[in-house]
């Protein structure tokens, strides 16, 4: 079976040279990189607004663009939903007519994405009669996501959809995007330069810099690679643990999540037992100990093995551990590394406060947005 999305685009834009090759996975593929990396240009080429100089773009079995085969479908024929930074709602139409704009133009095709379901998933029922100018920024962005979904696309492009919102709204919309991802079997290509959004949403990660793809792969694999400065040098460098809920302990206000062989305690999750959950552990929240510590308030004390020690540009050291078969990152001062005589291969104990663990699906991720 071919990938949901395969992209090869070459384009010279003045002095900027874009040359990217990558694949999109089912679920969310995040195009991550600094401003000016060519992420938005790549998105425009996939949408059909920017005509490449060469390459090939295919959605499943269908070719959208092929320089050799002289194929270049116009944007309106590509059936690709596009959510912009600004909501771009049509000001002369009500919310309901905005939502139905793409739906009406998808007539005659199978329409598996139903109006009522979209309105329910995005919480739009009470907004339908309103005009766009009467919506808050977060509401407008939810409507614009719904409008794109209802055009019955085969791929949803999201171009930094949170960048125009404040931190509280960001967390809010992020939760809605997760619901969209979980409710509709639709591949999403999500562009951002925010690591917090990336670790929360991505199934597959494509790192871009200066018009090139630096690395691509499953998210958990890539964020654990200490050789990728784009991730490892960030203050928000974090490990991602994809696990399942194994128990709730309401009396303690905690939930237990198994990731690999490791059992993690995190603040109570609003998810059923066996539900998949993603834990995000910031490197700066991890403490290392050489022997099993006693009498700590921190709830997570897990044994692991030190795999690598990498000195970062700011002098701090990023340690990678194997904990229960999963990688974990810890940011340390060189002084701590010397004092503990840390070396590769040593057994260590990783200590993490439960409250420092972010479980995706909860609304408390705002702390991540300062990184």
């Amino acid at each position, binding site marked *: 079976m071919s990938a949901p999305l395969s992209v090869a685009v070459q384009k010279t834009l003045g002095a900027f040279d874009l040359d990217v090759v990558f694949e999109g996975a089912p679920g969310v593929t995040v195009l991550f990189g600094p401003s000016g990396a060519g992420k938005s240009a790549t998105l425009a080429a996939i949408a059909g607004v920017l005509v490449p100089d060469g390459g090939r773009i295919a959605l499943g079995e269908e070719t959208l663009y092929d320089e050799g085969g002289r194929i270049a479908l116009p944007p*309106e024929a590509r059936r690709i939903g596009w959510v912009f930074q600004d909501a*771009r709602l049509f000001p*002369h139409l009500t919310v309901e007519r905005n939502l139905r*704009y793409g739906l009406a*133009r998808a007539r005659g095709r199978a329409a598996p994405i139903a109006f009522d379901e979209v309105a329910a998933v995005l919480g739009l029922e009470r907004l339908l009669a309103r*005009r*766009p100018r009467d919506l808050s920024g977060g509401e407008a962005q939810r409507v614009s996501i719904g409008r794109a979904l209802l055009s019955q696309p085969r791929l949803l492009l999201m171009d930094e959809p949170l960048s125009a919102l404040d931190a509280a709204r960001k967390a809010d919309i992020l939760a809605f995007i997760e619901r969209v991802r979980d409710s509709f079997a639709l591949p999403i290509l999500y562009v951002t330069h925010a690591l917090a959004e990336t670790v929360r949403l991505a199934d597959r990660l494509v790192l871009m810099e200066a018009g090139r793809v630096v690395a691509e792969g499953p998210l958990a694999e890539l964020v654990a690679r200490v050789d990728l400065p784009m991730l490892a040098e960030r203050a928000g460098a974090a490990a991602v643990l994809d696990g399942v809920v194994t128990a709730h302990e309401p009396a303690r206000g905690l939930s237990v999540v198994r990731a690999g062989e490791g059992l993690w305690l995190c603040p109570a999750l609003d998810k059923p037992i066996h539900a998949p959950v993603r834990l995000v552990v910031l490197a700066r929240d991890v403490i290392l100990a050489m022997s099993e510590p006693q009498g700590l308030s921190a709830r997570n004390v897990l044994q692991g093995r030190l795999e690598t020690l990498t000195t970062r540009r700011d002098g701090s050291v990023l340690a990678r551990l194997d904990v229960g078969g999963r990688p974990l990152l810890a940011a340390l001062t060189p002084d701590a590394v010397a004092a503990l005589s840390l070396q590769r291969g040593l057994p260590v104990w990783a200590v993490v406060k439960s409250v420092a663990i972010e479980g995706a699906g909860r609304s408390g991720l705002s702390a991540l947005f300062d990184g």
Partner: protein
Amino acid sequence: MDLALSPDDWLAVRTSLIVAARAVVFALPLAVGAALLLSRGRFPGRIALDALVHAPMVLSPVVVGFLLLMVFGVDGPLGRPLLRIFGVRLVFSSAGASLAAGVGAFPLMVRSVRLALDAADPKLELAARSLGAGPWDRLVSITLPLAAPGVLSAVVVGFAACLGEFGAVITFAANIPGQTQTLPLAIYADLQAPGGEGAALKLAGVSFAIAVGALLAAELLARRARRGSGR
């Protein structure tokens, strides 16, 4: 002084309204088309089209009327086939008065639509495109509704300009009561007659009332259109 309008006065009012309304009905689609080309089009000769559209604004109306005579006269390059094939004679006819008035008002109408189009965000058209709307679909469902206040003001401004057009109408269509004698032409005719100042003053008052009424109506409609377009 008798304030009541004479049957001849009423005839001039009626002629004016018919000539102006007909002119606006025919000029509006062309003005919208020209405004779209000038606002959204990227083609060689755009500057030439711009100049051509605006020419009637800077030319003397008498010159406009004379050029129309050359082109649409019974022996003109367009006037002759119109007469031979369709039996339509524009010179010295009510339709001709509309043509002359409409040409004079055309630049104002294009300007008003174009300003509204320039203010309509093309990003919204891109959004419509990504939702599956083709070029005509986008024009009808997004672009024109966004420019609706400008189209409306083009109608009013064009109507008022047609009511007031004098030089081009009298040159091309002459001063025929009931056919081409609009209000300004009737005022002119009254002033030519000895003791006609009183009649001229009444018609001037009527012209003033119609113009102010049109502007008020335009303002009210524009407010409603702005509310409707959500801005």
